[in-house]
């Protein structure tokens, strides 16, 4: 094990400072519970909802519903955007076909086209999944394209000299060489999808962690809102760690070119 660096201590201090500030600010009683609920009331609302659930679903069901939406949309993204991106990077004609669509919708805020999606696909799961899918597709696609374009000509020429055909080059040279970028895209996509989740649960959801936060905010339940946001934050970090772990397993040569 390496010795923890000073940076780790600094990060811990930031987190500790925020938590201490939270305690100090709320314990003096000068701050209204509506604006910043005390850590105690947030913890209590966590326990209550853990025990009794929130509006018909337990906390795990809320989280599970959201994760199910996220994971399904994400897997769809992975199996479509990665091949599409790699092929687009390899073949400029395919890229020319797909890129205009991506370039157009990528900068759009999801809420702007969510109304259209609900009109087309209804208010059930389909439109929510479609929204998350679209949110995740672009980042993966773009980094896959960039990953292939970045590959040194030498690698490909080298393989050609050794008698590799186009198919072999794609699978044995391009795919592994682009993997680092693919994973960057996968991580970004997960982050973008996760931030879109609340938007996806804004319309006609009856469960989901994002919905829970939105619903609680309607009733000015800041304690539940805080709790939900903290849970979402921690879950987000965990999801990112999982991708990083997978990346480490797959690209064991990372950083060694």
């Amino acid at each position, binding site marked *: 094990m390496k010795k923890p660096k000073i940076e780790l201590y600094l990060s811990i201090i930031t987190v500790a*400072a925020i938590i201490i500030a939270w305690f100090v*600010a709320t314990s003096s009683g000068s701050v*209204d519970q509506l*604006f910043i609920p005390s850590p105690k009331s947030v913890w209590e609302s966590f326990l209550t909802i853990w025990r009794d659930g929130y509006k018909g679903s337990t906390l795990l069901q809320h989280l599970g519903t959201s994760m199910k939406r996220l994971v399904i949309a994400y897997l769809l993204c992975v199996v479509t955007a990665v091949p599409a991106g790699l092929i687009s990077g390899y073949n400029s004609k395919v890229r020319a076909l797909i890129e205009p669509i991506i370039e157009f919708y990528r900068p759009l805020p999801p809420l702007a086209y969510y109304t259209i999606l609900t009109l087309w696909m209804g208010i*059930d799961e389909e439109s929510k999944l479609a929204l998350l899918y679209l949110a995740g597709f672009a980042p993966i696609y773009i980094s896959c394209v960039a990953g292939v374009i970045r590959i040194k000509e030498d690698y490909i020429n080298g393989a050609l000299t050794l008698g590799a055909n186009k198919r072999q080059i794609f699978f044995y040279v391009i795919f592994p060489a682009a993997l680092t970028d693919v994973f960057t895209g996968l991580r970004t996509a997960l982050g973008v999808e996760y931030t879109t989740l609340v938007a996806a649960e804004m319309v006609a959801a*009856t469960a989901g962690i994002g919905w829970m936060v939105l619903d609680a905010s309607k009733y*000015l339940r800041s304690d539940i809102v805080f709790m939900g946001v903290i849970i979402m934050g921690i879950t987000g970090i965990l999801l990112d760690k999982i991708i990083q772990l997978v990346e480490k397993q797959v690209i064991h040569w990372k950083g060694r070119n």
Partner: protein
Amino acid sequence: MKFTKIIAVAAAAVLTLTAFAGCGNKNGSSESKSDKLVIGTLDLVNGDLIAQYENWYTNELGVKVEIIKFDSGKDINSALASGSIDIGQEGTSPAALAISNGIDIEVIWIGDIIGSAETLVAKNGAGISSIQDLKGKKIATPFASTAHYSLLNALKLEGIDESEVTLLDMETDKINAAWQTGDIDAAYVWYPVLGELLKDGVSITDSKQLADKGIVTADTNVVRKAYADANPDVVTKFVELQLKANDIINNDSDKAAEEISKQLEISKEDAADQITQFDYLNADQQIEQLDNGFAGTLKDTADFLVEQKSITSAPDLKEFESRVTSEFVKKAAAN
């Protein structure tokens, strides 16, 4: 030393955050007299629209006026809590929520008592002709609204458990879209979407029928207490304008329909029709309501929200009574 530096940074962070947290604390603080009034409106079909059309707010209040349009009482509450607006329009449900959550407001005016202007509509062909038929169906309404409150009570009165239906939380424009695509079977909504749904649907019950059974919903104007304390004259004048507007609605409904239709950009017939679906109170009725029944209505609403587990607790009736005042109506009527 490095560590003293780190501690200094941490201390600075704590102080900044605490100071930042302090910014949010608008409740309970006193304000000085303001030369401005920020009004939050929902464009509900009542005197507020007439006052807007006649430019009374800008011309007669004697202070600089800013009017901000909101979509729901929930957003009005947030704006009141943060001090972004001074007077806000909201239904009894958001008002009860605000008082239960300790937002420092006072109810100064009852804009209207909701009648059939909020209605539970079932889509033609969905096989719904009574509340009992709603079992197993999808019903949409904007949660935490007066319509939501009415819907839940309508179900409760018929002994239907919430788990026997699918309740969907949607803003009214989304309800309209979902209705057109056949995603929902029924909805409890207000105008203008209500008008759209009735073209292809039938009324199952409405807030007038519920009011007869004791489930009263109304739209109010609330003021931030700190603003009212510092600017009582402006608030009194505001209420005076509402009284003047209600006079027009109750005595010259043709003119009222004309003005409301122009303000909302709807047809005059629609406006005239909608006016008949609310009750508008004159000064005496306002004072009677504000002094007697209204705090109870808010208390009932809050208690119901507790029963729904939407909020943890509701304050006692005394607190609601202290949050409802006829003071400004009395002063305005005397002017």
